């Protein structure tokens, strides 16, 4: 009874359960350890981008609310936090890290519901890394004078922090953990499309017993961020987001005493040499551009392939793209989830249209997209010119441009020929080639034979219009010390 089994074998849905998640219908502002209604009385909706359903109402903070938050942070800084020993500060941070681990599943599910990223990534990357950042900086809190010997180490005061929607919880951890370890207090604003995990973090911070006012979380739109940037009693602004907003912030604080770090956009080059391990490089290309739907500032969005292997690499890349699961972010098998917002989907679609109109060869995976929600097929543009808008501008979506090159010098020139300089990838079997390129590529991070790897101990940041200052590692700590 030998059956011919070569029929279709498709995986059944494997949805992660959301039953254990506790979400309120309405979220207030977290100021001075209390949940405060917004001065304006206004709320906005947080939407699940995978099905366009409303998850919760979130308070919209105005200048008055921000002022209240800054005053609370100042009061906590002067009277409590700056007087605490590093060891005590460290204890709080360790506690927060452990609580994130305990609630990891809930955080992962909310991150996916609110932001559209696949549950696999929220569960395996965002949440564990967020906890690791708290663990890492907790360890430094009582060792600042060893971290930076032969100089006085002094905290700055109140830090205003504005974070983007691509890694909501992780970015909050990147910002809050080093600020607190160094002895500062914080007013943080998450993005309007992804406020929920920051608000859950506020609940967790409340539970941790952190003194009131040390961390304040104000939700809202650009006007809320602007109120933080322009508040006279803030000592430092840390911003992660678009290059345009970064420029506005830098203008706004010119002439003030405020310190600034900016982590902005990117258009990073991923370079494949002929002698690279090709199959693994193809995985690296996929991970470089399709990780988090391409909503990654350091996404490897410009692919450079040496001519001898270009045909092979492109064919293998297409084959691999067809095996990616695109769809419901809550399904454990989903590789590529939903685009974060309608607005972002429109931006990406606009660029895809430009690419088609310019007459570039396009390839999109042959997957079906869900009827509801904001989804985009993984997309390649092949043989795109360096002067094309697709190569010049950050798309922030699952869209990859492919260019070929002949020599090392040529690829270095082209890789550096961009206003950005956040990251780069180099794929080759030859170590000397890697070291040659890492010293010549003007990018804050260069990955060799891998891509999109993050670790709390490793500094991250950009050249040129990708910003300045570093986050992560000792460099990230230094940004919060005077």
């Amino acid at each position, binding site marked *: *009874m*030998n059956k011919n089994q070569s029929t279709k*074998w498709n995986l059944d849905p494997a949805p992660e359960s959301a039953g254990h998640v506790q979400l309120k219908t309405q979220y207030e502002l977290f100021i001075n350890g209390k949940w405060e209604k917004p001065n304006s009385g206004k709320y906005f909706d947080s939407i699940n981008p995978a099905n366009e359903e409303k998850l919760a109402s979130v308070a919209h903070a105005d200048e008055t609310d921000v002022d209240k938050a800054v005053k609370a942070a100042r009061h906590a800084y002067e009277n409590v936090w700056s007087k605490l020993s590093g060891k005590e500060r460290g204890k709080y941070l360790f506690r927060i890290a452990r609580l994130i681990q305990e609630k990891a599943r809930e955080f992962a599910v909310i991150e996916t519901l609110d932001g559209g990223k696949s549950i696999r990534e929220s569960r395996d990357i965002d949440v564990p890394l967020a906890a690791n950042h708290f663990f890492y900086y907790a360890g430094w809190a009582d060792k600042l004078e060893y971290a930076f010997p032969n100089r006085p180490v002094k905290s700055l005061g109140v830090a205003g922090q504005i974070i983007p929607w691509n890694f909501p919880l992780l970015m909050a951890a990147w910002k809050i953990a080093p600020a607190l370890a160094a002895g500062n207090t914080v007013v943080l604003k998450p993005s309007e499309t992804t406020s929920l995990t920051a608000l859950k973090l506020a609940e967790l911070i409340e539970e941790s017993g952190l003194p009131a006012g040390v961390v304040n979380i104000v939700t809202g739109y650009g006007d809320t961020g602007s109120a933080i940037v322009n508040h006279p009693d803030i000592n430092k602004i840390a911003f992660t987001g678009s290059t345009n907003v970064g420029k506005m912030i830098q203008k706004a604080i010119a002439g003030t005493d405020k310190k600034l770090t900016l982590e902005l956009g990117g258009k990073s080059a991923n370079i494949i040499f002929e002698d690279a391990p090709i*199959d693994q490089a193809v995985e690296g290309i996929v991970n470089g551009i399709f990780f988090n739907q391409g909503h990654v500032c350091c996404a490897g969005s410009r692919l450079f392939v040496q001519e001898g292997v270009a045909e092979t690499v492109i064919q293998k890349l297409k084959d691999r793209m067809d095996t990616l699961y695109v769809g419901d972010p809550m399904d454990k*098998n989903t590789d590529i989830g939903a685009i974060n917002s309608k607005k972002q989907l429109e931006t990406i679609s606009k660029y895809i249209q430009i690419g088609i109109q310019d007459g570039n060869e396009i390839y999109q995976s042959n997957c079906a997209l869900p009827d509801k929600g904001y989804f985009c097929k993984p997309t390649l543009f092949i043989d795109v010119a360096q002067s094309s808008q697709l190569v010049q501008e950050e798309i922030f979506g699952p869209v990859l441009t492919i260019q070929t090159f002949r020599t090392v010098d040529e690829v270095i020139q082209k890789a550096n020929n961009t206003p950005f300089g956040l990251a780069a990838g180099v794929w080759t*079997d030859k170590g000397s080639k890697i070291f040659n390129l890492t010293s010549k590529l003007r990018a804050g991070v260069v990955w060799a*034979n891998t891509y999109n790897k993050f670790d709390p101990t490793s500094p991250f940041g950009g050249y040129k219009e990708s910003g300045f200052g570093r986050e992560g590692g000792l460099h990230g700590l230094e940004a919060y010390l005077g």
Partner: protein
Amino acid sequence: MSTKQKDIQIPDFRFTPTIDKVGVEERVARIQTRSIKGESKIQGMKMVLNMIDLTTLEGKDTPGKVKQMCYKAQHLHEAYPDCPTVAAVCVYPSMVKIAKEALGNSNVKVASVSTAFPSGQAPREVKIMDTKFAVEQGADEIDMVISRGKFLSGEYNFVFDEIAAIKEACGKARLKVILETGELVTLDNVRKASEIAMYAGADFIKTSTGKIQPAATMQVTYVMLMAIKDYFNKTGIMIGMKPAGGISTSKLALHNLLMVKETLGENWLDNHWFRFGASSLANDVLMQLMKSKTGVYQSGDYFSLD
């Protein structure tokens, strides 16, 4: 060399594609986070059963033991209706005739190891005789081992020629070439040996004898699957894959199947192109199948040991 391969240009095996171990581990880890549930799990497990080469390769094998295994090959678990048979039984050459008789007219194939299995430390004439004997006894498939010592000392032509000679001795029997990856150590070597075997005429490439650890790790199988894919893209010829040794759980087997689907595609999800070399896998899969039917796990005593 077989006719189908006449026109194919043989590459220089010193320059096979390089493999990055870390990258392979990451890729495999991604496949292992996949969740196979519901109907797809049941369908997958039935496919697994149907792809098993039920194996006994021991010095103490007897006709009685082999006959019992052959019965099991056709009747895996009477308590489960519509249970598929395994693909083949795998035995030493001296047991081929007994197995062939025991299996009668069933579709279950008889595979025989040969070429001085498992070490392969014998002259080529002996290996050819060993193979011819197994084929004469009725073997449908021959599982040969490569000369790992020659391979490691860089004598790729020797290894190539030996495989080609055995292929000739096989006649109509399909040839599986065992690389014994545990002795090749690096993934670069696994890739190289896979290419040598395919270009020399293998119908299947197989990871291990089951006598050496590590055997069929998912990393090794992944590298071999990608080699098969590249060979297919170059020549249009499909080559089968057989991971053997160390796959004893249903979950691991299902992840292997998913890996085949995500690399070679659905065309390979058939026992003509993919096999598991295993002795204890069948019972674990049967236990899971019964669990999906009854909702409870039964003790090992409810599944026959053959």
